[in-house]
């Protein structure tokens, strides 16, 4: 009979964390469609922008090309949006729906580490996707690095926080895996549409373009574009990302259901 159970160390072993991250990585890698889309779609967008680059004078974009100022930022926002708001939440919703969270809830680790592990894998995938897009832009179309690298890094972090928090909120509120896909895609395509995914947002009616710059997709594109040009990012875009991250994270923590 175990008489020392009260003294047994009870935290999640490091091996458990690593195994969960490994398990989530395998799940993501074996979900072929979910794996390919966030890599392929941004590349497609990037290539199209690269091939159809309008001939603008160097002074219009502070000496940078449309690919650098719009193409790369749009590709990055697409990667973050698809992974953060569509892929990661649909895994979490499926885990809740099928009882994976319940099953892990009775292990010593509990169910929280699997959410963390899935997020870690999502972040790694996003990093790889953005890296791939950047690589193609640099090697394929001769793009250069941002003029303000720290603004780019900060903007990317803020954008990541905003999209992943929004995804967590979607996972918390949507009842089924299909509704996560639907809500996630509507958010992604909706903010993308007013944020420049389908063309220059300055062609949109004024108020819509202004809203688009504050919502995560357009805000990401604005801040990253500014980083490439070396101009200060618009305050509204930075605040938009920060507020989205905070409010969505708080809502997700408040409303997340385990079963």
């Amino acid at each position: 009979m175990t008489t020392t159970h009260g003294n047994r160390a009870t935290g999640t072993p490091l091996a458990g964390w690593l195994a969960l991250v490994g398990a989530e990585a395998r799940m993501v890698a074996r979900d072929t469609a979910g794996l390919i889309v966030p890599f392929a779609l941004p590349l497609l967008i990037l290539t199209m922008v690269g091939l159809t680059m309008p001939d603008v004078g160097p002074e219009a974009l502070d000496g940078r090309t449309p690919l650098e100022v719009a193409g790369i930022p749009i590709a990055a926002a697409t990667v973050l949006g698809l992974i953060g708001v569509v892929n990661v939440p649909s895994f979490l919703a499926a885990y809740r729906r099928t009882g994976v969270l319940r099953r892990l809830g009775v292990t010593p680790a509990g169910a929280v580490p699997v959410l963390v592990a899935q997020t870690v894998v999502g972040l790694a995938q996003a990093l790889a996707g953005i890296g791939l897009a950047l690589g193609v832009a640099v090697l394929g179309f001769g793009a250069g690095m941002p003029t303000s690298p720290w603004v780019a890094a900060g903007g990317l972090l803020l954008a990541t926080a905003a999209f992943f928090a929004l995804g967590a909120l979607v996972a918390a509120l949507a009842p089924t895996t299909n509704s996560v896909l639907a809500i996630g895609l509507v958010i992604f395509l909706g903010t993308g549409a007013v944020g420049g995914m389908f063309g220059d947002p300055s062609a949109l009616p004024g108020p819509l373009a202004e809203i688009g710059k504050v919502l995560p997709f357009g805000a990401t594109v604005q801040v990253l574009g500014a980083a490439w040009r070396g101009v200060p990012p618009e305050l509204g875009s930075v605040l938009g990302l920060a507020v989205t991250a905070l409010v969505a994270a708080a809502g997700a923590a408040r409303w997340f259901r385990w079963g």
Partner: protein
Amino acid sequence: MDAIEVHDLHKRYGDRVAVDGVGFTVRAGSVTGVLGPNGAGKTTTVECVAGLRRPDRGTVRVLGLDPWRDRRAVRAVLGVQLQEAALHDMLTAVELVRLHRSLHRSGRDPADLLDAVGLTEQARTRFDRLSGGQQQRLSVALALVGAPRVVILDELTTGLDPRSRDAILEVVRELAADGVTVLLVTHRTDEIERLCDRVLLLDAGRVVADSTPAGLVEQAGLAQRVRFRTSGGYDRTALLHLPGVGEVQRVGEEITVSGTGDLLGPVGAELVRQGVVATGLREERPSLDDAFLELTGRRLETGRDTEVLV
């Protein structure tokens, strides 16, 4: 020593009372069956024991620990197989056992465990490509991977073919032999008879019987029956006067003697004394199923029915 102590447990979901004052204890190293119709509160009760639900009222202790407050400590010593819980479906059997093993500080060897539940050949098969029975066996393996001292198994043989079922029941028997305490929720009285030292009968959120399987049958107070066939006559009055006999009925050539206690010996001897040529003399003991029907007024549903209802 009691491994599980439940006292005055209450749990309601909105207006519906699921558990209404359940109390029982489970001796360390014993196998206890939890039997009851659908909606009796079985799953809610074991979920409270597993620390998955917080009781509205009452106390639950597993090896002296509160499964809700001391969740982490309890999960280290408690293994749970849940009725409606899936696993990472794109991982293979061995990947899943290794994953769950890594979530415990100590535990059993993944390869040995897969062998024990008969899944060595399927070790590299993805969970979503295993058969229902194989998935069920894997989920039992995961309940045991942390080498728990107390195990809760909820409907563990639902959907299993007879051979898989026997293999799993053998695993449970070995657990008990190793001194592990087992709480087994089931619809199948044959499993209770084969494995359990004790049986708790739940109905409408209450414990209506808490006894050995044989004691439960006795508690139901059902008549014992002895049947035989004869084409000729016999002395009905003499049979009625035998100790314990309450009734003698004849339908065609078949005579049924019912009453209490051991009837077969005295009835047999009396028939010999009367020189009656009786064929097919046999005793019918009330089964656990009959006792269940008597004590709850309901037939036992099978696991299959549950699946349809869910």
